[in-house]
């Protein structure tokens, strides 16, 4: 049965409440769980440290490593200003240069990254900037959305619901830009990458909102990093297009508290420790 977690300001609370809800369901699993962060990027002090300690203890990737699969913030040097309609050409060029350096830096490392067996199908950010993601020279979906959102702003349009159409094949059509497509239409695999299948954007009254759809959300290992990465992605788009940062929703069509990977007691202790931080 579907369940919407009450919208909260921080991604830390969104993660915690989603984990607590799902862990309380039969077998620690639930369908159609939606979490909403009203201020993407904001975290509660100490929660990430708690999760990282847990992940490190269990030999899992850190929050930062997971986050950078969605948006490699380490490779982006943001200029200290936003794009705006009528911005000076040199300022616009500076923003473009920062984005290009990000894309180039990632494309530089992509061959090495996909040489790892786990990444053989590509990476999330790779799919965003060179779809279908394994090789340089694919479609840069992210840049196309920057151009479209700037175009909307230049035209004085502050609401655009065509950005939120969710049709796989249209992801590659330059004339029509739905959400970022992460799932290839000829991909018939039932497990593994990509768990994040689609990122949907809606521009409403000048604010850019996002919805990420996960076909399988691993709430202990991945969800917190996913929220951080999606927040960074939104921030990048927001800076590059001058849109205000809207809300971030994460829809796990299948939410998994990972009882088959971690002991229930350990999951409960992790949630309790994080809860203490949130409650401070």
């Amino acid at each position, binding site marked *: 049965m579907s369940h919407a977690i*009450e*919208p*909260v*300001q*921080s991604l830390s*609370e969104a993660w915690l409440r989603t984990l607590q809800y799902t862990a309380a369901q039969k077998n620690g699993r639930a369908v159609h769980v939606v979490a*909403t962060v*009203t*201020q*993407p*990027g*904001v*975290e*509660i*002090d100490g929660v990430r440290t708690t999760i990282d300690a847990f992940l490190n203890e269990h030999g899992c*990737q*850190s929050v*930062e*490593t997971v986050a*950078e699969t969605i948006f*490699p*913030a*380490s*490779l*982006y*040097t*943001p*200029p*200290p*200003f*936003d794009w*705006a309609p009528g911005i000076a050409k040199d300022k616009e060029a*500076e923003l473009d*240069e*920062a984005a290009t*350096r990000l894309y180039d*830096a990632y494309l*530089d*490392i992509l*061959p*090495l*990254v996909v*040489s*790892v*067996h786990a990444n053989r199908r590509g990476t999330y950010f790779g799919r965003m900037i060179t779809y279908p993601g394994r090789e340089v020279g694919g479609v840069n979906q992210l840049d196309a959305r920057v151009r479209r959102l700037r175009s909307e702003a230049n035209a004085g349009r502050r609401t655009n619901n065509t950005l939120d159409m969710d049709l796989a094949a249209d992801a590659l059509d330059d004339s029509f830009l739905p959400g970022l497509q992460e799932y290839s239409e000829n991909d018939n695999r039932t497990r593994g990458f990509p768990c994040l299948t689609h990122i949907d954007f809606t521009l409403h009254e000048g604010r850019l909102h996002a919805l990420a759809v996960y076909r399988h959300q691993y709430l202990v290992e991945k969800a917190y990093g996913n929220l*951080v990465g999606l*927040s*960074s992605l*939104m*921030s*990048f788009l*927001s*800076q590059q297009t*001058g849109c*205000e*940062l809207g*809300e971030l929703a994460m829809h796990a069509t299948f939410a998994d508290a990972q009882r088959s990977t971690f002991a229930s007691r350990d999951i409960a202790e992790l949630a309790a420790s994080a809860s203490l931080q*949130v*409650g*401070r």
Partner: protein
Amino acid sequence: MTWEATDASLWRSNSQSHRTHLTSVSEYLTICVMNYDAPSVPAPPPLPSGPIPQLDGGRLRRCTEAELGNELNALVRGALPAVGLNELAADGSPRIASLVAVWMITQVAKAVGQPRLVSLSQVKAEELRSIAGVARLAYNALRAGPAQAAAAS
């Protein structure tokens, strides 16, 4: 309850147009929270001016492991100024994100003309957590030579 901002919100806070948003109360129902104090956030580092620094392949081959670490440190500071190198890893060198480590390995590989200098699938995660770890990895790969590097990939 206290707040910390991720890199994402730090970028936003430096934008005049978003300060109001980040310091305002959400229109949605939330628990009682203290908002993040945007104006106190320091400005981000400036964009690197001019071309991205390049490594000299010939010099890298002659470097000691420590010298290689210095080269990598300078490279990151020049090309990726947003990467903070203030936090130290267990080995005493600057802690880095694994993605930055992969980027550094790629730059060394390009500089010496050996795209498969390092086989990432054979690298331990700990080696990708610090500049010294990457320097050690690159130093050993350079000493191993192209044939061994290709065989390992």
